[in-house]
């Protein structure tokens, strides 16, 4: 088990292996991502029952919750990649950070916008300084920071390493930020979704939510793989192996 994992780690850590096998994976992953996303969202928006309190307005959670959770997951993934890049100086790690950052920022923005739209019928205003919305706003800022740092440093390798360090610091911080913002204010309704234990949500709503979450994750994975492939092509443009693969 452990050996398989370390072998995978080393294989996928090599740009060449990554490029070749992500190329094999993507034609399968893309249709799967689009399919789950469409099924989840259409089911949620059109067929799931209306909420007895919020009516139809709650349906935005089928976009809001997946986007928010994927944004958080993406940030954690950047932190892990950053740690790997800093400790083992793995080339793929900072390529991954570069691939994750823009789309993660977009997801955080989507979560914020849908949250605001949801807020209008629920709280009567587009913006309240509620703990979750504020955390998501700070997450967007953290993403933008990584993005800005990478763009400010001309050398791509140096930019990648700087972004690695910032992501690691950011991930340590994000936990404290979340805790502090929750202390700061906890006006929001309780957690809608619990991974462990009984969910407060009826299964007719939960099923499409989980499917759209999976859909967003897969979609995220696809874009990250594609962006990573582009970055590999840029960095390895002089390599013999790339010419052979692309021929």
């Amino acid at each position, binding site marked *: 088990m452990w050996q398989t994992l370390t072998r995978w780690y080393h294989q996928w850590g090599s740009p060449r292996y990554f490029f070749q096998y992500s190329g094999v994976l993507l034609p399968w992953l893309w249709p799967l991502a689009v399919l789950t996303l469409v099924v989840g969202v259409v089911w949620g928006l059109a067929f799931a029952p209306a909420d007895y309190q919020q009516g139809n307005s709650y349906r935005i959670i089928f976009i809001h919750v997946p986007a928010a959770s994927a944004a958080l997951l993406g940030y954690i993934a950047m932190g892990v990649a950053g740690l790997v890049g800093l400790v083992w100086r793995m080339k793929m790690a900072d390529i991954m950070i570069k691939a994750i950052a823009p789309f993660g920022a977009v997801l955080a923005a989507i979560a914020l916008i849908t949250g605001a739209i949801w807020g209008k019928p629920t709280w009567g205003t587009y913006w309240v300084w509620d703990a979750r919305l504020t955390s998501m706003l700070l997450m967007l800022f953290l993403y933008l920071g990584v993005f800005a740092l990478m763009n400010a440093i001309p050398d791509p390798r140096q930019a990648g390493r700087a972004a690695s*360090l*910032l992501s690691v610091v950011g991930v340590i911080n994000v936990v404290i930020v979340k805790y502090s913002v929750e202390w700061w204010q906890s006006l929001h309704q309780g957690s809608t979704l619990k991974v462990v234990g009984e969910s407060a949500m009826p299964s007719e709503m939960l099923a499409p939510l989980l499917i759209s979450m999976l859909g967003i994750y897969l979609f995220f994975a696809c874009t990250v793989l594609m962006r990573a492939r582009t970055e590999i092509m840029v960095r390895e443009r002089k390599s013999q192996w790339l010419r052979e693969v692309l021929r």
Partner: protein
Amino acid sequence: MSFRATLKREVVLAWRRPAEIINPLFFFVMVVAMFPLGVSPKADLLSVIAPGVVWVAALLAVLLSVEGLFRNDFEAGALEQMLVAPTNLYVPCLAKIIAHWLLTGLPLVLVAPLLGYMLHLPEQASMTLFLGLLLGTPTLTAIGAIGVSLTVGVRSGGILLALLILPLYVPVLVFGAGAAAYAANGAPVEGLLAILAAMLLASLTLAPAAVAAGLRISNGG
């Protein structure tokens, strides 16, 4: 060895360039003075926003002053000497952070109660504001130093530094200003000050390592 020498050097440097100590202090006072002008001179309103205003102003003053932490050394080539030396880079980095706080952060903390008074902060909150800043501003300097280490070679790094660092300042701001607001309402604040102290210890132990790594990266490593 290199800790004491670096500490001493930083103090001498600041002594020869007093503007670097005094300017952040002026900035701090001026920003606070803008609020009654911009919001309202009414005592009841000011006393409510006082903790937040003082804290945000202190945070910005630290952010602006910390930007110069490595810039002059970088431009003079002295930073390279720090990086090639065989001693552990952690030590001089820690010394620089501590020296920088003593020279620019501590003066802010000392004038903060006065500014609180001018904003009609209830007297029982004054001590908490002071203690909170005393525990919080070194954390701000330490976290800021990480950002500076990454942007030291970047052109127009100042605004970039703010983008990187401000989101990381949120917990200190929340607990620091929160503690002073609690105290103003007569609520107990020991727990919040303890959290600030914990963040101080964590940032002082971890940040120099991150700063060392950041300096290596921005110098081409």
